[in-house]
């Protein structure tokens, strides 16, 4: 018996398998999908700005997660000192960190754009250390957490209760993606930035201010990830080292999706989030979830190397 024509194509076979898997999960372990999607939202919202900088400016920003940490602290102090809600605090944090991002670019990043990748890595690694130690000096390593009622809001369907606040991560991630895609594809500055990323020399020749484009993109990236800190604060404890693990996760997602593939990050986040949740749904296997990230980096590098050669 032969398969219908449509299912002879690999992509439809994969899609069908995925649908079957999802349906199985819904009946067997529904929390895997719920928590997987929620984790994916947070990972994607942090990774997308990093992918923007890496894909266009070509800079590996090791301090990416640490900027999120700084944004979280700013949102924390706005809440403590002025009673601001952490989600509302995302707006002033975005503005303040846009300026901080611009200053960071002017003082540090722009001087290593033409340097070897290792020099860029060292620079941003040093930046990460400075941010972490600064936070430690100013606020100590003591974790801080804001209690907001809505962070533990939940829904009960039958015997299943689950939190709903973290679906805001998903909404925010989609919003960031749409906003960035519109900016890059539909605005002159965005199109200029894309052009500068593809061919800086050619872009200069046609009159595009490459320097300004890089500055703008870097500042936007820092502003977005810092603002995400406010969202992060509503749900998590913050301390000086909280951001570094998310830098690594963002690397893994960019590795999977491919440099410059912003929409791909959303789908890869979903895959990673669900994979993590699936492993963690088995008692005693929570510790294996971390292996997923590193195993995927290795797998992608190996597969891409094999394909190239």
């Amino acid at each position, binding site marked *: 018996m032969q398969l219908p024509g449509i299912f002879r194509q690999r992509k439809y076979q994969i899609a069908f398998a995925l649908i079957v898997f999802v349906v199985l999960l819904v009946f067997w372990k529904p929390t895997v999908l719920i928590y997987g999607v929620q984790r994916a939202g947070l990972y994607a919202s942090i990774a997308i700005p990093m992918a923007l900088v890496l894909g266009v400016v070509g800079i590996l920003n090791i301090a990416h997660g640490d900027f999120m940490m700084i944004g979280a602290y700013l949102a924390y102090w706005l809440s403590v000192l002025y009673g601001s809600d952490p989600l509302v605090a995302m707006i002033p944090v975005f503005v303040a960190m846009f300026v901080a991002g611009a200053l960071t670019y002017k003082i540090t990043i722009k001087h290593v754009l033409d340097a070897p990748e290792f020099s860029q890595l060292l620079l941003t690694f040093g930046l990460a250390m400075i941010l972490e130690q600064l936070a430690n000096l100013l606020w100590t390593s003591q*974790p801080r957490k804001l209690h907001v009622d809505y962070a533990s*809001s939940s829904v009960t369907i039958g015997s299943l209760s*689950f939190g709903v606040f973290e679906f805001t991560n998903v909404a925010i991630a989609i919003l960031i993606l749409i906003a960035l895609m519109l900016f890059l594809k539909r605005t002159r500055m965005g199109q200029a930035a894309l052009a500068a990323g593809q061919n800086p020399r050619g872009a200069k020749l046609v009159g595009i201010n490459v320097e300004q484009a890089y500055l703008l993109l870097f500042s936007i990236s820092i502003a977005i990830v810092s603002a995400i800190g406010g969202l992060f604060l509503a749900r998590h*404890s913050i301390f000086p080292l909280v951001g570094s693990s998310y830098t690594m996760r963002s*690397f893994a997602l960019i590795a999977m999706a491919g440099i410059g593939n912003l929409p791909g990050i959303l789908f890869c986040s979903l895959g990673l989030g669900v994979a993590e949740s699936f492993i963690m749904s088995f008692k005693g296997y929570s510790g294996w979830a971390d292996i997923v990230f590193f195993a995927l*980096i290795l797998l992608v*590098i190996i597969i891409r190397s094999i394909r190239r050669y």
Partner: protein
Amino acid sequence: MKNNQSIWAMMLILSILITGCVKATAEPTQVPTSVPPVEEPTKVPTKVPTEVPTAIPTEAEPIKLGVIVSLGDISGINGQNGALLAQEEINAAGGILGRPLEVIVMDDEMTPEKGAAAVEKLVTVDNVDAFVINSFSGVHMAQIPTLKKYGTVTIVTGAASHLCEEAIGTDADWYFHLHSWDYMQGQGQKAGWLAITEKYPDLEFGSVFMAYEEGAFGTASFQFSQVLFEDMATLSGESFKSAAMGGGDYSAVLEHAKAENADSFTWVGYAADALPILEQAKAINYAPPFFVGAPPGWPPDFGDSPLSEGVIAYEVWADALTEVSDVSKDFYDSYVDLYGSGPDNYLAALVYSAVHILAEGMERAGTLEADALITALEETEYVAPTMEVITFSPSMIIKHQAPLTPMIAQYQGGELEVLYPWDRATSELIYPFPSWEGR
């Protein structure tokens, strides 16, 4: 575009390097095979005789005390505060042997190299007469060889790992440990639960689900608990990645705990886990009869959250002790007068006590000579603000051990109330853990 393969290769190398650079603050995993018997808590007098202060001669050379703490952590800051408060009190009362006390604080920066270097510097440059050390176990392990080299009388108010005890050995007469070793802490907790289940016969404590952070600290705690509680309750558990180590998602472990429906849920992690784990428990509507937390320290504002109501904690200090002990109240009031707010962490009281113990020991000895001071310290009976009567006796390995009796406390109305030991109790147990509705 740049060469992608070299970028990915460097990312992989860097991720391995950064993973290796993450500070390890947890305890090692080795579990001792024998456990000393449980001791009964001792009665605590509530008043301490006061002395008439005398003036210190201005030309007198100070007695120097080296205090090593982790200033990057709230525990270290509290320890420093306790030491400086003790210095002020001792000097106001006339100093030690007619000489002023000078506390020299050094930060170990929570790294072994800096911790060892602090010892070296305090001995060779500052010529300190004694030490009070409040370093984490990993840092203290690096300090031990340097401490052994000089043999300066030392009181250690941190380092709970029994591996530190093994490293110090049986011959270190100059070493005094003013903190429970890891295996002692569980004994105290078990004694407390036995007493509580006896007092409240209707409450059920037959099964415990323990969620423990996957590092050495949590794993060792789970292993100890399995040994200690095997005759009292069925213990099952699962690890989670602590927020302090880049985790913070407890959904899986909470779902498993909810499915098992144990009489008690205990989490062993760090302060960063305290509120998030409660929020996620609320989100899945999981309210076990006992909700117990066992981090080394709690966030200072934990009690402010309505979710903290009914959470049980193991503590050595609680502000509520000021209601039942004049010694605790005097310490607390002095601390507030000097710093504007109460201590956030028990180490303020512990380091404070250690400085006073050394001062009193020096007075009894009448000299700073090591052998005489050691003999004098062996006679210590110090009433601490934690309501312990501090005495030193041999532990499994070392000669001078003063264990701390962990209290079982519960957050009630935003305050940490003591439930056990009975002579320190400030409130009755709230049982079962309140429902999440309305919180």
